[in-house]
């Protein structure tokens, strides 16, 4: 059975698109037929992060309005065989994203794909709502910062009360906590909420921790999802996240401050 996974947060700029790109790529790298949908209508960005911005012809709104058939709007990813991108529209406003239209697209995608990853826009308005409504599982992307944690709690409340699964009385949406932009050094110094703190407050299972890393900017500069960056801690962390999601028991990494070796102190570390 195909699974619909929403990557959501409430708060903006916490790493949803970065996560959607790397998570979908990771699923595809493991042989799953995967599609990642940009729900950020008006502010599309996933195409840039995936490096396919120049191949966008049709978008999700074109498909909903019947201007294009779904297969014409899907863009094959250049890094992975099993991965496709469905871009958002840049020109329309988000009200064009009707729930019936989204449902039609998701049902059609379910016939071909194993995983449908939905990159939610920020906020709790219509765009974010349509991204989460059909979800079976949710990655709740949270930064170790008060406003992000509070917004994640809001989103969890909405998932539990207003998602299709909630409305239809099915099993609830399965929630996963993903802490991103984590800085173990600052946590150790008492300057940043720890993973344990966040988990204790939000009370949902932890799927993974992505460290704050300069390589994320390099990945976005070149249009390569961070998971493909060789030997970077972010890539490793995202691979762990995908492995755990698929049921492998992988221990948490990158959650304690590493001691700076002499070499790193002299020449700097990434």
């Amino acid at each position, binding site marked *: 059975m195909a699974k619909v996974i929403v990557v959501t947060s409430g708060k903006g700029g916490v790493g949803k698109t970065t996560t959607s790109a790397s998570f979908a790529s990771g699923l595809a790298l493991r042989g799953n037929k995967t599609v990642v949908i940009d729900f950020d209508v008006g502010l599309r960005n996933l195409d840039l992060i995936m490096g396919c911005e120049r191949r966008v012809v049709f978008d999700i709104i074109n498909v909903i309005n019947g201007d294009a058939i779904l297969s014409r709007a899907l863009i094959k990813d250049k890094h992975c065989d099993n991965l496709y991108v469905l871009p958002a529209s840049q020109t329309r406003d988000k009200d064009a994203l009707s729930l019936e239209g989204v449902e039609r697209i998701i049902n059609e995608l379910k016939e071909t794909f194993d995983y449908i990853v939905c990159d939610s826009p920020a906020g709790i308005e219509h765009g974010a709502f349509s991204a989460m409504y059909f979800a079976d599982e949710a990655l709740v992307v949270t930064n170790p910062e008060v406003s992000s944690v*509070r917004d994640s*709690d809001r989103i969890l*409340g909405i998932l539990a*009360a207003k998602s299709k699964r909630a409305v239809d009385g099915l099993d609830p949406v399965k929630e996963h906590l993903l802490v991103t932009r984590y800085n173990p050094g600052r946590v150790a110094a008492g*300057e940043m909420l720890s993973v344990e703190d966040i988990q204790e407050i939000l009370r949902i299972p932890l799927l993974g921790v992505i460290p704050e890393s300069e390589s994320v900017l390099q990945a976005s500069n070149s249009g390569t999802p961070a998971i493909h960056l060789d030997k970077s801690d972010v890539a490793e962390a995202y691979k762990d996240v995908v492995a755990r999601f698929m049921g492998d028991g992988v221990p948490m990494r990158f959650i304690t401050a590493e001691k700076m070796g002499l070499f790193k102190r002299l020449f700097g570390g990434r």
Partner: protein
Amino acid sequence: MSLIDNLLDYLRGPEKKTAVVAKERLQIILAHERAGRGAATPDYLPALQEELLEVIAKYIHIDREKIKVQLEKHGEYDVLELNVTLPEHQRIL
């Protein structure tokens, strides 16, 4: 910094780390926000509040704003909280 300042700092003890402050603030505000969400407020609550106010008003002369009825979630349990701030010169006996 003067000697006095140093001494005062010493007496106050180590400052609370900001991460600890962040966690405490979140726990308080989220408990509040969760309580006010969805099914947490049963529809008899306004009527119950109204009747409690009437009963209390029979015995104590008091402002309506000084009485709060709240339903809070504490883990598995719902706790109905009745908060009455008494006027300074009055006591219930």
